[in-house]
């Protein structure tokens, strides 16, 4: 994802809250410290189909907003 961002493509990473420190550290390591993160509720495993859809509904508007911003 960092490579895509560095090539100028609109890129966002979706992760659950406990993984934010890892995601931010990795973005720094791979040279894209400002890579946008969309944070969704934890966990991703052991949840029902309804909860999975809930995570998607949580993420999609944020992704759309970020993509608009990135495209200026």
């Amino acid at each position, binding site marked *: 994802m960092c490579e895509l961002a560095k090539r100028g493509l609109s890129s966002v990473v979706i992760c659950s809250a*406990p*993984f934010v*420190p*890892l995601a931010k*550290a*990795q973005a720094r*390591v791979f040279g894209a410290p400002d890579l946008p993160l969309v944070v969704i509720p934890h966990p991703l495993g052991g949840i029902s189909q309804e909860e999975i859809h809930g995570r998607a509904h949580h993420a999609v508007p944020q992704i759309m907003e970020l993509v608009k911003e990135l495209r200026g």
Partner: protein
Amino acid sequence: MNDILSYIDKVGASIEVENDYVAINDLYHHRGWTDGLPIIPPTEKLVEEMLSYCDRPWDSPIAKIAPRYGEATPIRLATNAVMAGCRPEYFPVVVAAIEALCEEPFNLYGLQATTHLVSPLIIVNGPIAKELGINSGYNALGSGCRSNATIGRAVRLSLVNIGGAQSGAGDMATFGSPAKYSYLAAENEADSPWEPLHVERGYAQWASTVTVIGAECPHNVNDHQSITGVGILKMIAGTMATTGNNDVYNIEPHPAIVIGPEHAKTIAADGFSKADVKRYIFENAVLPLQRFSQENIERRFLVTCKDRYGDANSSVPVPMVQRAEDLLVVVIGGPGKHSAVIPTFGVTVPITREIQLANGKRASSVEEFKIACSDSLN
């Protein structure tokens, strides 16, 4: 090339502290540079002594350690080896292990950052294992032997301090395992009825190697009753067949079987080669699909392996390994009627690497590293 004084003059390469062991340890703990145990302060003198067994450029990376992809230079590795309590002659094994761990198929990034409790298991083969007194007998996977404890610990400290595997940031393990302090043993080649691991994997008998495995802690196989090879193998296969291990969910897992020398002798006496052992375990370490929860059947097996399980009944066998040859079989331990099963992270390939001099020549003794280092300095 190998001048430690010019290195430590670089900004951030060294710190000045009060000459107080307790205060230094408090500082190292406070900065997150330890595994929680006390360290030996890595002074310039001790790091230089450690590097006296390194015949490579001390400040040139031999690998990059995920997830931070920090450069593993000999100076940095030697610093961690001093902190871990290694004797200088252990250092060539630390270097070889780090090189093996950083080979792409091992997937160190996955191991370091996962929520799974995996830690690298390092198995040492060949004459250097014997020279360094690496324990292959009583308690080989436990405590009590300096080379086992400190080489393994040096690797772990390097993974944390150079690789950035801090808990909750680079290391997301839900609860980790005791193997994250140190996890290293030699194969008990003398008491094994089979070819050693490194020979099986294509190296000469007189080569010394490290083999790294992305491993869970050992799961014991107590078998004091079986007096036949097939009896013991049935018990090993039964111990291996569990629902919650990572190997059962992955495409090409390489779980390890540690066979105690007494069990190995009985198995081999009944005519089983290593390949036969693997074949038996592959065929018999299976569980009927119904032993998994309905959610796992529907949301995992029927999604990832629909061809195999799609129209099958609930008693179809689920294998723990996909091919017999993917199993690792190694003989470790002292007397006793025990063996062990070691599941893995699943998405990791074991790597074997020879402990070689910088010029690519075989090292039959670690002292060759010291001579080569001395030659390079003169």
